[in-house]
């Protein structure tokens, strides 16, 4: 029997699954929870049985020749000063997609990408179809694997700032996990994970010649709503559920808290811990970046990116996507205290594609660099405006890949909301149109009669004119009667309908 089982397991590709939860107090009343779930699978030819690795992701990898895929969704503001470095890969408000994949040509890559995005919408319940993916960013955006030079790898990257993350996304991410009803994933309680100061989730899919890997991550920063009652946190109270069963198939199942690692792989009784550790100190100054918007008119504006370096000399690779509705003035882009070592500018290919500006900047410790990008706002076609056109449209956040002596990470600035020129279909516009039309109708004939060499000749027969006038007069009287008696049009309609019904009955 044992030999049969051994033979059976040898026929399958080797798969692994692990889960981890890290809890850190980031301030007196705020706690960061960082979930990570991972799975890997040995790449064997013609092997289509799956134990812990999500089959759907494997199919995605195979179908679209994906080498590295990263989808991140974020909501809320990360407070660098208080909470320290952002959980990597850094999430920006909205959704980000980064993909490395093989294709035969640029056209083939674009086509593949369109299908890949739609497939992701299905897997993650997102609405990323409107994302504008930039062709081949030349500078680094995220830490990613290296590939052999023989492969023709196409890179695509895009941000959709308006995408909101919700419980539907969490449900779909949970479905990718091998343990959904046991282990740490029990704590993924939507009502708690979205009632937070900051929420981010990500999906990473990697594939090389030997192995395929997947990682699902969820980060949330909780706020203690009753700070007077004490600032200690119980695991069960944070997530409103106790960790009572372990994930049997996981190779590793751990909770990191209070500077300790708790192994929860072989749980027999319900597990609970109190997070008593002091808030983590964020004395080391990090690189910070923020974007501000200039200009107050409807023709043009300014995008101002400020980069403040921390304690160490850094190399920054800044990527700023400029969507199709703004036209950057390339000649007027200016820099203040920035030592630029490399530039990569990609203009938009067509009316609906975005432009990408990338700068490699060397910045010394404590220094501040400022980039000013003036732009013109485009007047869009009517169909291009969203239903809430007056809300404005987002320019995505700038992504900054920071390389320091022994470390590298990604940070983001904030997106900005651009108030575009919007056609006004509101009341004053209508008034102007109606008044102008009325004037045109009055002054048109006036001008005509006074300048033409032809004069109108009134028709000789006046009988039909009198009939016409009588009908018009009756109509006007009826309208006035209806107006002053406050007769509802619906009542009139109903009356007519009833009358017609009676007529039908008579037949």
């Amino acid at each position, binding site marked *: 029997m044992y030999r049969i089982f051994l033979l059976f397991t040898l026929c399958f590709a080797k798969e692994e699954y692990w889960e981890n939860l890290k809890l850190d107090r980031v301030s007196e009343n705020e706690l960061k929870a960082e979930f990570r779930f991972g799975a890997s699978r040995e790449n064997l030819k013609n092997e289509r049985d799956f134990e812990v690795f999500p089959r759907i992701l494997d199919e995605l990898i195979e179908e679209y020749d994906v080498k590295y895929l990263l989808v991140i969704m974020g909501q809320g503001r990360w407070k660098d000063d208080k909470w320290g470095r952002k959980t990597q890969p850094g999430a920006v408000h909205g959704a980000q997609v980064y993909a490395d994949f093989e294709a035969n040509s640029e056209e083939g890559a674009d086509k593949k990408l369109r299908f890949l995005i739609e497939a992701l919408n299905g897997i993650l319940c997102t609405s990323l179809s409107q994302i504008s993916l930039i062709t081949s960013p030349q500078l680094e955006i995220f830490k990613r694997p290296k590939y052999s030079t023989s492969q023709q790898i196409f890179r695509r990257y895009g941000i959709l700032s308006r995408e909101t993350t919700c419980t539907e996304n969490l449900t779909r991410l949970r479905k990718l996990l091998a343990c959904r009803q046991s282990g740490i994933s029990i704590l993924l309680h939507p009502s708690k994970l979205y009632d937070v100061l900051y929420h981010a989730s990500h999906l990473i899919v990697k594939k090389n010649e030997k192995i395929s890997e997947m990682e699902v991550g969820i980060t949330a920063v909780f706020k203690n709503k009753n700070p007077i009652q004490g600032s200690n946190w119980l695991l069960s109270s944070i997530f409103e559920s106790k960790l009572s069963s372990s994930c049997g198939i996981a190779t590793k199942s751990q909770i990191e808290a209070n500077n300790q690692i708790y192994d929860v792989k072989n749980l027999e009784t319900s597990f609970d811990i109190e997070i008593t550790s002091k808030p983590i100190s964020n004395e080391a100054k990090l690189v910070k970046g*923020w974007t501000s918007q200039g200009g107050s008119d409807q023709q043009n504006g*300014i995008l101002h990116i400020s980069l403040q370096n921390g304690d160490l000399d850094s190399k920054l690779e800044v990527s700023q996507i400029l969507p199709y509705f703004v036209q950057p003035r390339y000649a007027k882009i200016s820099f203040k205290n920035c030592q630029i070592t490399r530039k990569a500018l990609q203009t938009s290919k067509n009316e609906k594609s975005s432009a990408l500006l990338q700068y490699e900047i060397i910045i010394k410790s404590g220094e501040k660099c400022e980039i*000013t990008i003036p732009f013109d706002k485009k007047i869009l076609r009517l169909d291009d405006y969203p239903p809430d056109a007056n*809300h404005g449209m987002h320019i995505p956040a700038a992504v900054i890949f920071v390389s320091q002596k022994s470390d590298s990470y990604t940070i983001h600035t904030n997106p900005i909301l651009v108030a575009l020129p919007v056609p006004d279909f509101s009341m004053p516009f209508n008034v102007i149109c109606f008044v102008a039309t009325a004037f045109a109708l009055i002054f048109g004939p006036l001008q005509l009669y*006074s300048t033409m060499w032809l*004069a109108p000749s009134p028709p000789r027969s006046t009988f039909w004119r009198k009939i016409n006038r009588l009908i018009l007069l009756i109509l006007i009287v009826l309208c006035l009667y209806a107006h002053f008696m406050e007769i509802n049009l619906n009542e009139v309609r109903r009356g007519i309908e009833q009358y017609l019904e009676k007529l039908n009955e008579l037949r």
Partner: protein
Amino acid sequence: MNFVLVEGGGVETPPILRKILRLRKIALILAGIAAWYYASVVLNPENMENTRISEHSLMPGLVTAKFDKTSMIAQIFSDLSENPKNIQKTICGYFHKWDLSCHSQKFRSNVPGIQISGENVYAWIRGSRNDGGEAQLIGVKIGGGRKKSEAELRNLIIAQVMAFAYYAKDQVYWSRDILFVFIDATSNSDDSTNFAFDAFLQEYHLTHSNYSTPTTVIHAEQLKEQCGLLIAGIVYEPVKWPRKSKKDTRIMSAAMNGINGQQANLDLFNSAAKIAHQKLSAGMALFGIYQDPHSYSTQAWPYLIPLRAIYGQGFVAVEGLHSVLGKYSVPALTIGLDHTMGPENGIFIESMCRMLNNALERLHQSYFMYILGDDMHFASIAYYLPILGIISAPLLISAYAEWREIQQIRLSPFIYIAHIIGALQFTGATYAYANFGAKIFDTNLAQLFILSSIIPFGLIYNFVVLARKSAENQAEIRFTRLFLQLLTCLMLGCLGLVNFGLALFGAIFAVPLVFVMTFESTSRARSYIRTIFLFFANPIFLLTFSAINLQQYLEYPQKVGENAIFDLNLAENLIYRAIREHLLFGSAHFALFCLFAQPVWNLLFLTAISTTNNEIDDEKMKKE
């Protein structure tokens, strides 16, 4: 419709037009009466529409407010009163204690004519559900106050706003950042306070010379923190207690007029009025008057608020600090809070913030054109704009009569000259004021301007160039008549869409003047008399005359000017104010005065002094 060729190839005028043209002489009087009657119907608050919150997304302003930090008001007020010279530090101290970011910003003027400097303070509550793209602004004046009681009132409002900040920092539902700006008002002058606020806003919008338009008026420190688009701004100040109000009535005040006829979005005002009514049982005083909408008979004249609204829109470019926000296309209001209502004021501020927090879109163009009858009623543009049309109608009829008679189009060179003179006056005066101040070589700039404005260049041109009564000159004058009539109508029409108040008051003077001065005169004596009258109807004189008398008519308490007809000091002050507002806030009053009013006045001399032998013949028209 059938057409037949008219005998002799002439024009047969329809009978209705012939009737209209025959009424031309009394059209001015008829139009005046008709406009008066129509305005009295439309501007009566009883006939106006009710104010309402039309956007559902603004409804959160009406949910139960939970402001509960009343005790903090007394503490902050006491600290502010003890440190009157360090208000900026005291404010920032509190914000830092609450773990909120707070910074100060120093500024000064670069223009010799404007000597202003000071220090603003700004602080943030970052919305945890915000992506950094949007914010709402709360502005408060700090320091100053002519009397001790005034300074105390300001401190109380600062304390109430800060107590709200203390409350708001713990709320998690903010989806927009809240920006608190404490504006330096130490110098007690409205201009300085507006300048201080503008210094902050120009840095916020990066509109200073380092980034875009080269402006040299304000030099201010760069902001240390930023946020995105400002959806709206509310400036809080102590309520100016209105006259004619009962003592037991709770009253707040609202100001909404902005630069160049801008008004706060009606939704914004409506929501503020509804919150005040429903939560505080308070009424909103407008333009210094509170009128109970339920009892007009016992209160003031019902037309006073609409008339003050029109007057304010036309002539008061900067009604309050909120007006400065209009320069940056941010809808804004100034709300006067009753200092005796401590907790209620906190509730009001919270409600306003929650309303703006939830707005789905920017408050857009739909409701920027209105006239308020009181805090519960408004007239929409569709109803009040015809007043302007009726007043301008006589000019259109005259223009039509001229058009029928005109034989050839001969553009007078003086049309160009008059406008060039106006443009030179405008650029010269603004340049001189910006670079040298009010005095140039010990000469008063305003006096120089007035002197250049009262020279009747049109009369000189007439005597020098048009002295000979040739057919060409007659054609030139006839076409100038038509040009002036159409220009005036067009300008008033365009202005009416942007700044109805200015257009209406402009029309009241311009239409009769242009009508009379362009009417054909066969009598030389009549022409001379009207020319003398025209000389005294100089725009500066009319402006000063209106400033003295309109305010009295509209029952404003302060007396303007020493003399009932003309006051030179007042005229100078008006000119300086117009230049200053143009330089600081981009007000178009001075430009309109120089580029429209002055050229029209000069051009009218050409037509006023001219006589004609072939007056439009009414008898001939009757026969026709």
